[in-house]
Every structure is written in structure tokens, then in C-alpha cells.
């Protein structure tokens, strides 16, 4: 029986005022193996920890139990304390008598009784603890950044600025993400392009950054410190090494009427194209489906006009893949804007001048379909020179805060709606702006001030959820216009408001293929489909998978400042790991007891991290410690107890259980 020390904390009055600590100490000192039991006002304080260190030395303690707050709070602290006194930190067990005893129990006697049981359980458990070593693996000094939006660009730049190699993978032909489509940004109203383009160029020209545009991550193997990543490059049919980006081909391509993805089909592009003027890399790609040469076998005009001889029709249509090695991964794969097509009652896709927020962004944009003029469609087509609207409706919370669609708030809609309100006022003098909101959420720096400014710009704010947008005119003045039906909850009346244009501020959703990417990366998602951070408060950019970080909207809706901040934060963590050169891996992994393993292989498909494989020679399972995340699911499933988990061995848990049930 090892020599055990038990240390009970008062946590000021947090524990002491409910749990009768001296009684617990006295009880503990009577438990088998306990040679020393003591209490302290604040065990986590320096004197508290010093008391433990001294006791370890003086009483030759071989096991330590600290009864105080949650292990999620101070387990690391006290492990360190033990280490400092020369005791392996895993010969320590924490008994949580605060969060789950004193704070949740009214009756003091019962609380004390429960505290005793918890302590007894910890004492029983700690007997069977074994020393564990925190292992380390070397870190390849390179980082993969998935997604070339503003968060990804920021992360890439930060990492690269330290002289570390970065692979920036973007599946679109150009980096820039959604921000590249924006006209102005709230609340400062500075031009999105003006602040983003330099960063894009900087990223593309940075000696330590390799931009893989028009590419996707298809496979990730290995583990923290040394991931092997396979990147698939889609065929461009243009040799970007030779291409000078002169743009001659773009002018000459006869295929003019291809709806542009970048402009949501509101503008056209050619078969050989650059998504937008400031695209980075600024090199064209050929859209095989629409290219006359590929479809009809004639043309080759672009080839003729290309002086650099960069056109290469013979590229493998399947594209090509390369493998890179990185030490860690930053996922900034962004989001997508919800298409409110199934909301027939709001007229989207049914009535001509109903737009989503991001589409309207293009309407305001100088290089957009209307050259920045906010005008109604002419003949069902968006183009410059149209009739300016007399009234515009901005509708909030489309698909957000809506049990039918997404319970969450998309966080940016209120603010960009206000931005639009301002832009409309600016671009279309005399145009009425109706802003239909449920709550106005202006939480960021300078946001509330922006709202107040808008209140003075004579925008009509209507509090209420829009019931319907219809073109069925009932009253004079409604003919040929759209009517927004809404219950004005401030006035307490149902109103019909005629408008000429409707902007639906629709929700931000997980990006296309977010689930698939999560699987490729063995990463968890929360139920809304956004990527799951390690801890919502204390580890917002790391994930349960060591060496994989998240930034920007892939983790949840965000505005630009937050996305950039997260990009930088993720970069900092990635760098910290790389600068240290090695990474610690939790020792509480699963391991196989060879003599007992019969190679039944039940465990293998259970592991979401593919950490278990069958050693064919020995016909046994093998757990790769660096891949194992220590969930213990395989251990729970192993029918012969041949799999065990360091720190959560069956014998330890059962001892804890016995401790609980032994208490009377």
C-alpha cells in the first residue's frame, strides 16, 4: 500500500462554508494508506502548494490527493506541484468538492458526507496510479492553412513573418474569400478591397508562403508535429509559370455569356477567366465545360493570342496532387451565405428585385453588375442604368435565430444591414430605407455608435419579423411594386409597406463540404455543423485534435475583426509549437496488453482517428500513441480487457467506484 497524502482545500469560504473541512480531513486520515491529511484556506496559493511539497518530502508521500475545485481548473497546477517535489504528476488525483459538492448542495451535513465519499473515491483510485511521462514529438517547421479568406490570409502572413514555411490552400481560383466581394466594411465604411488586396498580394508574394489556389486538401495522415497532407490541384489549362497575367486571352475568348460565380450569376465571364479584377493569383484558368475547344474541338483563340505560350490544353483534366509535410494545421475554411430559396413567402427567386445581403453587396460595388449603382432590374436583368428604387426593405434574421433554420445568431447581419442603409442613403438620394429587425445587435467596437448615426440618417427602423413580401397590390400606390407585410411590434399594428427592392440578410452557414473536411482532418463538429473548438472560452482556436487550429467563420459566424483576430491567434499557437520544436502528447492514451489481445479487430473501426491498426505479423492490435486522442472508446469496447487506457485503467475506475460505494 503506497503512502498517501490528502490535502483538503477551503477555497476561502467557497468550500469551507458548506463542507465541514476538518471533518473531511479527519475522515481522510483514517482511510487505508493515508499517512498524512491536511487542510488549507487556499490550496492553489503558493503557501498551499508549498505545504503539499513539504508534506511530500517530510512524509515520503507516494500518492497525493487534493480535494478542492474541479480538475478542469487546477489539475495541471497540482501535477506541477507534485513534480516540483519530485513526485510524478500522475501519482496525483483530484477530488472535486467545490463545483460538484459545496456549490451545488444546500445541506451542510450532506455536503460534508458527499465530500467524504468523493475523497474516499479519489484515495481508492490513486492507489492504483502509475507514473506516466508526458511524451514529446518533433514538429516539422511548416504550417498548412486551409482557406484563403481574410482569416486564412492573416494566419498565413503571421506564421510566414516568422520565417516559417506556409502552404495556403484555396479551392477557388483566387484567394480573398467573401471579403473580396464586399464594397465597404462596417462600421468604418472603409473600402474592403483597399484593405484586403494588399494583404492578398503580400501573401502571394511572400517568400515563405506557397499559395495553392484552385486546389483542395484531399488527405491528411500522420499526427501533430508531422502531418502528411495531399493537395489536389485542379486543372487550369494555363501554365501559371509562363503566364504573365497580361489578360489578352480574356478579351479574345468568344465565350462571353457564362454566369460569373463570383457575382452570383449577376454578371458574365468568359470561358478563360479571372474571377475578379484584383484576383490573386492574377492568372486565368480555362473553364473546360464552356470552352469551345474542349466542347466543340475548334477555337484555340486564347492559345493564339498568348505571347507567353502559357495555354496548355493538354493538362490532365484530373489535375495533379502533391504531398507536403507540415507540423500543424490552421483551418480557416470559412462559411457560405444561406440561399433563402425555400422561403417562398419572401419572394426570393420569385420576385425580381429581391436579393440576399451578399448579392446586394455586389450591387453596391463599383466593379459589380451595376457599376455600383443601386438600381432595379430592367427586363429582369441586373445592369447599370436601371430605375433607382424609391424604397428599399432590409430584412434581418433570414434563417438565423429561426427554429425552422438556424437557432444561432449570424452576428454580422444587423451590422451589414445598417451599412446598407447608409450606402443606400448615400447612393440613392431620397430613397426610403426600411430596416426590419427583431433585435438590433451592435456588440462590437464602434458598432452602437454606427447605429446611432444611422438613426439620424432617417432610416425607418421597424421592429418585427416580416411575414410576407408580395407583389399582390391591394391599395393605391402598391401597383407594380412589392409590399412588405409585417407586424410592427412597437406600434402593435400589421403594416403593408410598398418597396421596390428587398434585401434579405440571410444567415451564415457552414461552408460547402465542411463535414467532409472535418472527416479528412478527424475533427469534431458541433450540432450546427461549425467546427468544434477545444474550449468555448479557454481554447477557442484549438481543437480536440492536437496540432489542428480553427480560425474565422468555419468555427462560427464572425465579422472581419474577429476573423482576423482568430487568424492571428491560431498563427500564434501554431508558431509557439513550431518555435518550441517539439510538442507534448498527453500520456493518457490507449495501449494494448499483448498477451491478452487476440486480434479480434473489434477496436479498429471504432477509432475515429485511425490510431489503431492490426500488426499482421503478430496478429494483434497496435495503438499509435501520437494518433490516439485518449477517448478510451476502444478500451470500453474491448471484450477481453486487452486494451487499457493510461490514467483510466479499469482497475483505477473500479477502485474509484468501490471508494464511492464503500462510503456509508
Amino acid at each position, binding site marked *: 500500500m503506497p503512502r498517501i497524502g490528502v490535502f483538503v482545500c477551503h477555497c476561502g469560504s467557497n468550500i469551507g462554508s458548506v463542507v465541514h473541512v476538518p471533518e473531511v480531513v479527519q475522515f481522510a486520515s483514517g482511510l487505508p494508506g493515508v499517512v498524512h491529511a491536511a487542510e488549507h484556506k487556499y490550496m492553489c496559493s503558493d503557501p498551499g502548494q508549498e505545504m503539499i511539497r513539504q508534506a511530500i518530502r517530510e512524509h515520503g508521500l507516494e500518492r497525493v490527493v487534493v480535494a478542492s475545485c*474541479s*480538475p*478542469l*481548473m487546477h489539475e495541471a497546477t497540482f501535477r506541477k506541484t507534485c513534480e516540483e517535489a519530485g513526485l510524478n504528476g500522475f501519482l496525483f488525483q483530484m477530488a*472535486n468538492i*467545490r*463545483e*460538484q*459538492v459545496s*456549490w*451545488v*448542495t*444546500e*445541506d451542510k451535513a*450532506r*455536503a460534508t*458526507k*458527499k465530500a467524504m*465519499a*468523493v475523497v474516499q*473515491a479519489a484515495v481508492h483510485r490513486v492507489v492504483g496510479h502509475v507514473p506516466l511521462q508526458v511524451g514529446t514529438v518533433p514538429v516539422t517547421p511548416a504550417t498548412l492553412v486551409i482557406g484563403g479568406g481574410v482569416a486564412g490570409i492573416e494566419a498565413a502572413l503571421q506564421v510566414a513573418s516568422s520565417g516559417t514555411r506556409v502552404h495556403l490552400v484555396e479551392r477557388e481560383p483566387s484567394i480573398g474569400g467573401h471579403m473580396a466581394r464586399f464594397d465597404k466594411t462596417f462600421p468604418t465604411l472603409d473600402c474592403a478591397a483597399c484593405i484586403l488586396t494588399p494583404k492578398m498580394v503580400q501573401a502571394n508574394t511572400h517568400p515563405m508562403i506557397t499559395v495553392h489556389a484552385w486546389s483542395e486538401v484531399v488527405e491528411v495522415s500522420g499526427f501533430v508535429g508531422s502531418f502528411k497532407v495531399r493537395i489536389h490541384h485542379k486543372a487550369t489549362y494555363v501554365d501559371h509559370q509562363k503566364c504573365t497575367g497580361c489578360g489578352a486571352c480574356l478579351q479574345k475568348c468568344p465565350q462571353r455569356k457564362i454566369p460569373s460565380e463570383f457575382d452570383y450569376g449577376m454578371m458574365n465571364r468568359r470561358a478563360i477567366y479571372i474571377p475578379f479584377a484584383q484576383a490573386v493569383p492574377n492568372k486565368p484558368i480555362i473553364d473546360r465545360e464552356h470552352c469551345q475547344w474542349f466542347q466543340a474541338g475548334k477555337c484555340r483563340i486564347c492559345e493564339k493570342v498568348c505571347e507567353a505560350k502559357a495555354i496548355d490544353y493538354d493538362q490532365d483534366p484530373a489535375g495533379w496532387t502533391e504531398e507536403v509535410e507540415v507540423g500543424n494545421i490552421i483551418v480557416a475554411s470559412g462559411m457560405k451565405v444561406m440561399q433563402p430559396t425555400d422561403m417562398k413567402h419572401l419572394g426570393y427567386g420569385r420576385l425580381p428585385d429581391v436579393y440576399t445581403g451578399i448579392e446586394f453587396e455586389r450591387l453596391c460595388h463599383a466593379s459589380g453588375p451595376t457599376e455600383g449603382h443601386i438600381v432595379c432590374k430592367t427586363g429582369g436583368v441586373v445592369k447599370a442604368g436601371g430605375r433607382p428604387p424609391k424604397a428599399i426593405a432590409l430584412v434581418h434574421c433570414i434563417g438565423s435565430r429561426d427554429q425552422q433554420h438556424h437557432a444561432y445568431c449570424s452576428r454580422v447581419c444587423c451590422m451589414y444591414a445598417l451599412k446598407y442603409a447608409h450606402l443606400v442613403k448615400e447612393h440613392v438620394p431620397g430613397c426610403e430605407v426600411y430596416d426590419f429587425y427583431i433585435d438590433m445587435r451592435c456588440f462590437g467596437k464602434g458598432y452602437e455608435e454606427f447605429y446611432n448615426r444611422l438613426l439620424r440618417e432617417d432610416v425607418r427602423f421597424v421592429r418585427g419579423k416580416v411575414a410576407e413580401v408580395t407583389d399582390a397590390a391591394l391599395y393605391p400606390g402598391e401597383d407594380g411594386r412589392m409590399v412588405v407585410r409585417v407586424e410592427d411590434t412597437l406600434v402593435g399594428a400589421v403594416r403593408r409597406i410598398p418597396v421596390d427592392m428587398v434585401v434579405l440578410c440571410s444567415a451564415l452557414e457552414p461552408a460547402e463540404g465542411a463535414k467532409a473536411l472535418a472527416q479528412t482532418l*478527424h*475533427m*469534431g*463538429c*458541433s*450540432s450546427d455543423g461549425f467546427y*468544434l473548438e*477545444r474550449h*468555448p472560452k479557454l481554447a477557442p482556436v484549438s481543437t*480536440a485534435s492536437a496540432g489542428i487550429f480553427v480560425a474565422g467563420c468555419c468555427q462560427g459566424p464572425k465579422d472581419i475583426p474577429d476573423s482576423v483576430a482568430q487568424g492571428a491567434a491560431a498563427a500564434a499557437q501554431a508558431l509557439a509549437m513550431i518555435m518550441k520544436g517539439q510538442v507534448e502528447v498527453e500520456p*493518457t492514451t490507449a495501449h494494448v496488453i499483448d498477451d491478452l489481445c487476440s486480434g479480434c479487430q473489434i477496436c479498429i473501426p*471504432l477509432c*475515429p482517428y485511425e490510431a489503431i491498426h492490426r500488426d499482421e505479423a503478430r496478429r494483434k492490435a497496435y495503438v499509435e500513441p501520437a494518433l490516439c*486522442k*485518449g*477517448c*478510451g*472508446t476502444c*478500451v*470500453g*469496447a474491448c471484450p477481453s480487457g486487452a486494451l487499457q*487506457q493510461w490514467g*483510466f485503467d*479499469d482497475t483505477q*475506475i*473500479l477502485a*474509484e*467506484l*468501490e471508494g*464511492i*460505494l464503500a*462510503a456509508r
Partner: protein
Amino acid sequence: MSDFEPRIVAFLCSWCSYTGADLAGTSRKKYRSNIIPIRVMCSGRVDPEWILKAFRDGADGVLVCGCHPGDCHYINGNHKTLGRYPVVRRMLAQFGIHPDRYRLEWVSAAEGDRYAKVVDAMIDTVRALGPLRWKDRLAAATDTLADARS
């Protein structure tokens, strides 16, 4: 059985449910004290063996809490637990143990309030079912030579 105080063991996954239970504490939710938690990294680690052992050694009820399905920090560890749950309950019934003495509940890191409710509900259920006292009753149902002679 009004004065009967059930003894309930709870196995909580560290990421969601244990954090949620902590949150119940930090937000000072009050619930009854008859429940003692055991922390594991994932509900998928909970071996049915532990559940039977708990009942045999004096527990009146066993509660297992994990992340909501689709919300698991280990991607799908909780799917393994929910896969074991129905058949374990059915087997308990075959041994004469009311299936409600074993409950599987999803409690996220944000659901401290829910944890408190789940615990109180569980305690009410088990209190209504009465004490299990497996070991004593098993001994009482076992004959020995002494009994045979007398």
C-alpha cells in the same frame, strides 16, 4: 420509502458533461447530494461492466452522461455508448433490475442547469423504485449446507 436516500453513481465525459456539471456549480444550481460523479474522457469509455459492478456493490442507480450526439469532442465516441445502452437496459430487466435505474443522458458543457435537473429527476425515479440492495438480497437467495441440514 420516503426517507430512502438512493445511492447513484454518475459517469461523466470530461468535455461536455463533467464541464456541464462544473457549470452547474459555478452557476450555483442546487441539486441533491446522492450522486457521486466519476470523470472519464468520453462516454464511450464507460464499460457496461462498471454499471453491473456498481449495481452489485450497492448503487441504486447509475447515470451516464455524454456530449449530445453529433457534438462529441471525439467525433462519435458517444455513438458507441448509445449503441450499448438499449441492450444493457434490456438485460438488466431480465435480472429483475428496473431499466430506469440505468439512464443515459446528454449534457453539454453549457447545460449546467440541465445537469441539475437530470440528477434530481434521476434521484426521484430511483427513490420511487426503492433500494436495490443487490448483495444482501443475493445472499438471502443463496442456500448453503447449513440451511440444507436445518
